């Protein structure tokens, strides 16, 4: 367990120094500026547009960042053979994987926090200020990012191809937002086989549709306790993906 923190620290430093991380943060800031300009076209709904488009930009950049970074996290070290050097030290494979994952997540969360600070500052300039709800939306977005990071890591180890892992990760992202639709289709389906398959898929894919607070912000607020269960869900799903990734990683022969 004590070997997690050095791996975490070097991963975090490595990623923050990378040009890809910096350019994604800069691109996020450009998108926030774009949201500011586009929202001017929204007339009476300017604040809503700034909020929605800004949060969407932060989430999109974080998603691309976390998928792009985690799929190459282990595979690049295997290719460059750096992994042999690291694993020759007394570092457990599980600790190494968790440290790498947590370091990546911290780097992505840092860029997310930077973008969110700027976004909240822009919103407050226009007289909008709801810090509690904004924080809840950010927690949900961070949860989605954590789930996607763990899923991408698992896929990269299972498929051993960066491109395939990225494609499948994006497929799961869409499938996750499709979970309500899958349940709706299962209800309507006359075939027992199709019904079972759809329900199985809707449970196996991460249920992003139900903790996409950013999207249903303007609708009546969810019941108390919903956010707590959403956080438990994200943590449990992330843990499941990471445990499977560790299982695969421990079975790998280098």
């Amino acid at each position, binding site marked *: 367990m004590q070997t997690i923190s050095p791996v975490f620290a070097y991963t975090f430093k490595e990623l923050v120094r990378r040009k890809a991380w910096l350019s994604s943060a800069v691109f996020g800031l450009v998108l926030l500026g774009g949201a500011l300009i586009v929202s001017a076209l*929204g007339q*009476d709904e300017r604040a809503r*547009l700034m909020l929605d488009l800004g949060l969407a930009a932060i989430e999109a950049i974080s998603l691309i960042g976390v998928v792009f970074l985690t799929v190459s996290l282990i595979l690049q070290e295997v290719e460059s053979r750096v992994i042999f050097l690291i694993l020759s030290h007394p570092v457990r494979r599980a600790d190494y994987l968790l440290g790498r994952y947590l370091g990546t997540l911290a780097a992505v969360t840092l860029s997310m926090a930077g973008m969110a600070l700027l976004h909240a500052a822009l919103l407050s300039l226009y007289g909008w200020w709801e810090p509690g709800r904004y924080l809840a939306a950010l927690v949900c977005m961070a949860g989605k990012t954590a789930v996607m990071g763990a899923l991408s890591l698992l896929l990269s180890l299972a498929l051993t191809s960066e491109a395939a892992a990225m494609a499948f990760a994006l497929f799961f992202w869409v499938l*996750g937002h499709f979970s309500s639709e899958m349940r709706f289709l299962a209800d309507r389906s006359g075939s027992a086989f199709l019904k079972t398959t759809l329900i199985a898929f809707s449970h196996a894919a991460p249920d992003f549709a139900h903790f*996409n607070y950013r999207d249903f912000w303007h609708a009546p607020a969810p019941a108390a306790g919903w956010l707590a269960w959403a956080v438990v869900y994200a943590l449990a799903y992330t843990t499941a993906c990471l445990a499977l990734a560790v299982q695969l990683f421990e079975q790998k022969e280098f």
Partner: protein
Amino acid sequence: MRLRWLLVAAAAFALALFAGSRMRRLHEPRFPHLAELKTGPFSFQDAALAVAGFRAPAADLAWIQLLQYAAGGVPELPDRPGHPYEHLAGLSLRVARLDPSLHRAVLFASGILAWFHGIERPDEAAELLNEGMLRSPEQPLYALYLAALAYKKQGDTDRMIALLESSFDLPETPSTMKAILANLRQSRGEYRQALSLWKRIQENDRDASEHARARIKIAELKILLAQSGPTPKKY
């Protein structure tokens, strides 16, 4: 030993299933299903954003396109000659079905369809408001506009205007609707009331889109008041 992580994964997944079911029980997002989205030239844009989890931003972009259409048309949806705002109801429904919480789209379009000079399509407006009320029953303005439409059909313009004016200062009332109301007052020769409404529009930061028009109308109404004397005529 080899199965340890598999067991951890199974336990965590079981917890995720349980937490997911609790989460769904506590809150079910009220978005219409994808099959209910309006088809048309923007279908691909709407479907792509909706399946990627960006439904509220999709509705926001649809709202901008609705405003562009109302301001002079969009190339994808040309109006036939003699059929102004032919696609307004459809574009408004598009927004409402992407995100029913963007109430202003329905209020804006129904206001134009029911009360805009030279449009007068109250049935379309009522249809739109009914769908809005079905999807967002918590929005009180839908019922209020429907009641005002009923007064309009009965020819009871006084009560219709009084009812619409009761919502004048509510944040959800579209600026366009306020302008329509002030123009209605002016068309009835009630210049003093019309002037008061335009002044309220000008003083409200939320109605910035109507401020330029308000300045012109205030100047125009002051001249009309000066010409008509101290008591306004009522037709």
